[in-house]
């Protein structure tokens, strides 16, 4: 990789050992993935729940944080993805003290490095949306795909170590979705049924992700018959990234780089497949067919917006849930939900509104064992995809059907 004088100085250790580690790490990654040089980034976003980090990862962070302040502090605004707990609810979730200790240690290390603990995966709705062509280092697949596709920003998937490295150096290797050539469509798909429900948007994203198949594929989607809202595209993108490792999609006539399909796709690009309502229902049946009685209902992944909480509160008004219901939002949305009475309406039903965590990033396996949870209903296609490996049997339902299941204890209204 070509290095500037400043980058060479960091590599030589002139900016201290923490930044030296950071740029060495970035050069290894950039070298593997064919980066010619670095690109400055204006923000970094770190995924670092302690189930992923483990004791080894937390100890590694603490070693970085023990360096002098001028060596360890991030150089650009650096924020965080959800944590592994909501400290105020940990006992009710039967999370163990050792989990909370790890979380506290990780938080202290990040704060010592100047990281802002935003604890959110919907920063594009709540903190600061990216600008078209703005280069970023986003460390959550849902964030990266939304900001690349809906906002026209430029980011690869930056895992926790690499997002932290970007925060420390203020740059990232220039490969993948920082480059014009990588942003061209490689897969063309037709949609014959535009979803009307968030779970259906997730299911559609899941199917497109499966068709795309890997990180380097860019789906161009034709046939969407209206402009979707932010929450719809949030579920759509998060599921596509989850099922296909996809980081960028284009919607013909809707997303900013695809005002005309020809702007992003070669005219000769063949149509790979059409996706209609039958395919969406088949995907949902592939989950729900394994589940009847429900142990827990979860609304999470991504964290809920204020508008999703409003919808949930409306569905729960006057009802009483018979199984645990966990709704998860960001620390930025939660105070508004409190102030506007949404939290009280949701919790009056017996449901819990959690903040700053995400269900699958919060020791989901240990929570399942401690609480006896296996059969889980959710309206998140992403969550349904992840939790099978954690020992759950997920069902993918609409928010309304999830609420009905929560009240009856089984699927079906």
């Amino acid at each position, binding site marked *: 990789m070509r290095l500037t004088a400043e980058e060479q100085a960091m590599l030589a250790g002139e900016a201290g050992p923490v930044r030296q580690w950071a740029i060495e790490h970035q050069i290894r990654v950039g070298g*593997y*993935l064919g980066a010619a040089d670095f690109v400055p980034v204006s923000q970094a976003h770190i995924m670092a729940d302690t189930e992923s980090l483990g004791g080894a*990862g937390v100890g590694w962070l603490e070693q970085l944080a023990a360096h002098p302040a001028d060596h360890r502090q991030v150089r650009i605004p650096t924020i965080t993805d959800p944590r592994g707990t909501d400290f105020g609810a940990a006992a009710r979730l039967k999370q163990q003290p050792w989990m909370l200790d790890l979380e506290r240690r990780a938080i202290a290390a990040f704060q010592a490095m100047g990281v802002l603990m935003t604890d959110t995966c919907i920063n594009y709705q709540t903190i600061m949306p990216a600008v078209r062509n703005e280069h970023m280092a986003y460390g959550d697949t849902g964030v990266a795909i939304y900001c690349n596709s809906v906002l026209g920003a430029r980011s690869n998937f930056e895992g926790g170590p690499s997002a932290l490295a970007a925060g420390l150096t203020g740059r990232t290797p220039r490969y993948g979705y920082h480059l014009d050539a990588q942003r061209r469509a490689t897969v063309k798909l037709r949609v014959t049924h535009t979803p009307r429900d968030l779970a259906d948007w997730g299911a559609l994203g899941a199917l497109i992700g499966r068709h795309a198949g*890997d990180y380097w594929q860019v789906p161009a989607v034709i046939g969407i018959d209206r402009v979707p809202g932010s929450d719809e595209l949030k579920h759509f993108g998060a599921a596509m990234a989850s099922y296909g490792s996809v980081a960028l999609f284009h919607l013909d006539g809707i997303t900013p780089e695809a005002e005309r399909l020809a702007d992003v796709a070669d005219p000769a690009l063949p149509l790979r497949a059409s996706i209609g309502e039958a395919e969406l229902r088949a995907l949902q049946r592939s989950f729900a067919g394994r589940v009847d009685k429900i142990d827990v209902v979860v609304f999470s992944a991504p964290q809920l917006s204020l508008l999703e909480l409003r919808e949930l509160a409306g569905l729960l008004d006057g009802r009483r849930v018979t199984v645990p219901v966990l709704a998860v939002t960001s620390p930025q949305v939660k105070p508004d939900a409190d102030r506007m009475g949404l939290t009280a309406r949701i919790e009056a039903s017996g449901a819990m509104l959690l903040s700053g965590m995400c269900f699958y990033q919060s020791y989901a396996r240990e929570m399942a064992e401690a609480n006896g949870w296996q059969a889980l209903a959710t309206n998140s296609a992403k969550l349904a995809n992840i939790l099978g*490996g954690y020992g759950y049997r997920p069902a993918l339902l609409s928010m309304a059907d999830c609420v009905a299941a929560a009240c009856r204890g089984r699927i079906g209204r």
Partner: protein
Amino acid sequence: MKGLTATAAMGKRVRGRALVAKDGFSARYDLDRIKGVFSRPDHKLAGQSYVGRVLVLDAAKGGVATAWMLHEMGARGVVPAALVLNTVNPIMVQGAALADFTMMSGFSVDITAAVPNGAMVEVDAESDPPCLRILEEC
């Protein structure tokens, strides 16, 4: 001995028994990292131990957690010997870089079809070009 060259690799040269499937890989989605087995019910390697094996799989899948998890798995010694993929994503590369883990990708053939399950293989990330050698078929 059959050699298959790759376009990219990192880490040390390692040997181990290949565990092969035409399926994806994500540490978060696919593994019970405590027991050291594939736990995703519909994964083609469900129930099988990955500890000490050279995983030969199709494509990197899932989210960003693997960037931390390879390091965590290595610290506990419940970790594959190496990861060989047709197609990587940045997360796998970032995770391998943090953990100093051996990884290789980018072959002229479908690597999951070229390597027999159970074969003894050498993943030579230090050679130029990187090379996966089938030392002994099972």
